[in-house]
């Protein structure tokens, strides 16, 4: 048993204990705080499983925003659960035990944890890791490199690939000996287990900054391989913001503001908030901008940006926040983010590519084009996520209980 498994085992036991406590504790306030603890433990579990982006999201969303939203709701609905006579709900217990037993029976023939032979580590993984999304792959009009492009230099990766180069760019046997092998970008055991890929064009990435690739393959998949999915998930978040406005916003004639508690008379809170807010904002923008280089991206960065505004509202009151970000502005920006995302896709179409085909943004250096497109898209996601989170917080805090 290695250290990773040991930590994993302990963390998951803690997570399960916290989950039981969340359900069984009677105070809803305690339950909300435990939810935050649960999310932070989960974030540790994700780090232990090398899933940095998910961990980042869980820490920002679960540990930060969800807990604030839950506590904001408890202000209106009361913080105690009604006492229940029977602590144990026997029919529910029997039902969940049976369902759980069936699911555990289903796990018995699952591949073992971390097994390299598991199907998930083979199906399309070389393509995903090599990031062959977008460029050349079967797109008509992109089979030929653009005007004035040094094909020889391009296919030799700036001289790093030596030896004879076949005339046919679809020569897949040659590709296996090409730069991908030299640079070791394909999981070795997968490469050994697979026939050479039928897909042409792996070796056609030009010698630009990142060797035609984006270092964080999670962001690459997010914005390119699953670009449509991410776009519509941004739309889902936008829809959530619209729903909150429709469900809870008071008519404008009643005014946005009801008097609420302000903590700005607390010197320590005021000073610490004013000191930390610029750094939180800077960190948020850093996370969005470096989405394709390291862990992070639009979703995480957007949530971090939102926490800066929420902190400001908590300390100085929502009247002060509305002077900085008036509700009409934040409402508009939720839509602007989705527009930036889909607009980037539309620009790629206007330049002659497919929707969200970022390499069209810089045809001479498609890798740079992909980087640029992903950064634009991440900013779109970041703007929508931050403004929707802010709107959700405002609406949940705004409604005084009647």
């Amino acid at each position: 048993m290695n250290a990773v498994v040991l930590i994993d085992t302990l963390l998951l036991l803690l997570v399960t204990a916290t989950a039981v406590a969340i359900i069984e504790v009677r105070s809803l306030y305690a339950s909300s705080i435990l939810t935050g603890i649960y999310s932070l433990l989960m974030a540790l579990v994700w780090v232990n499983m090398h899933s940095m982006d998910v961990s980042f999201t869980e820490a920002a969303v679960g540990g930060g925003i969800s807990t604030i939203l839950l506590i904001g709701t408890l202000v209106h609905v009361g913080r105690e659960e009604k006492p229940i006579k029977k602590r144990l709900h026997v029919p529910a217990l029997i039902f969940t035990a049976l369902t759980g037993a069936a699911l555990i029976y289903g796990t018995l023939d699952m591949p073992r944890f971390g097994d390299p032979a598991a199907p998930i580590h083979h199906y399309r993984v070389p393509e995903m890791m090599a990031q062959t999304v977008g460029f050349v792959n079967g797109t008509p009009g992109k089979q030929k490199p653009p005007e004035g492009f040094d094909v020889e230099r391009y296919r030799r990766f700036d001289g790093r690939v030596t030896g004879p180069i076949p005339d046919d760019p679809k020569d897949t046997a040659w590709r296996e000996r090409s730069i991908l092998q030299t640079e070791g970008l394909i999981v070795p055991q997968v490469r050994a287990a697979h026939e050479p890929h039928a897909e042409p064009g792996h070796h056609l990435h030009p010698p630009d900054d990142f060797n035609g690739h984006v270092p964080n393959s999670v962001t690459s998949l997010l914005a390119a391989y699953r670009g449509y999915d991410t776009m519509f998930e941004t739309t889902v978040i936008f829809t959530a913001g619209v729903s909150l406005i429709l469900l809870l916003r008071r008519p404008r004639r009643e005014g946005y503001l009801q008097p609420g508690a302000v903590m700005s008379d607390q010197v320590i809170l005021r000073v610490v908030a004013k000191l930390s807010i610029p750094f939180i904002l800077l960190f948020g923008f850093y996370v969005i901008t470096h989405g394709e280089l390291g862990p992070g991206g639009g979703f995480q960065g957007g949530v971090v940006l939102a926490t800066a505004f929420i902190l400001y509202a908590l300390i100085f009151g929502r009247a002060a926040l509305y002077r900085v970000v008036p509700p009409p502005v934040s409402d508009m920006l939720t839509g602007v983010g989705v527009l930036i995302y889909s607009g980037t896709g539309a620009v790629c179409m206007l330049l002659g590519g497919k929707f969200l085909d970022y390499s069209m943004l810089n045809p001479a250096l498609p890798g740079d084009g992909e980087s640029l497109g992903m950064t634009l898209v991440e900013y779109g996601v970041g703007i929508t996520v931050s403004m929707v989170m802010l709107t959700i917080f405002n609406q949940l805090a705004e409604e005084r209980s009647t």
Partner: protein
Amino acid sequence: MTGALGIYNYWIYVLLMMIGLYGVIAKPNLIKQAIALGLFQTGIFLYYISMAVIDGGTAPVWTTILDGAQKYEGPYDNPLPHVLILTAIVVSVSVLAVALALIINIKRTYGTIEYDEIEAMDQADKRADYQRGQVVDAADDVEHKLEGHHHA
């Protein structure tokens, strides 16, 4: 890793999902139900991320490209489940937010967020409609609450 420890993560995912499911069924409080639904979701997240792990692997961010001197030959964990789950987490907080907004509206309309009480009020309302204004003895206290909130 072999033996039972090899599928330990999958058992924990089942356990978390079932704790969430138990909460949704057994707890009449709507806030508790929303939180329990979140637990159910994290169980599924754990399932996905557990599948992505590969023995001896690391995070799917290439250091090779940024620093040509060091060549890491892999293996990397599968990035696709990570992508699916990181968007799912943000969508789950949106779901939670809409649920909380609906709960606030329910509190305003019914004056309670306990599911059984809401159900009793709805039944009483239905019965009152059916009997055309006759006093429903079974739901006296509920009638009293309805005077305050529902028919206001």
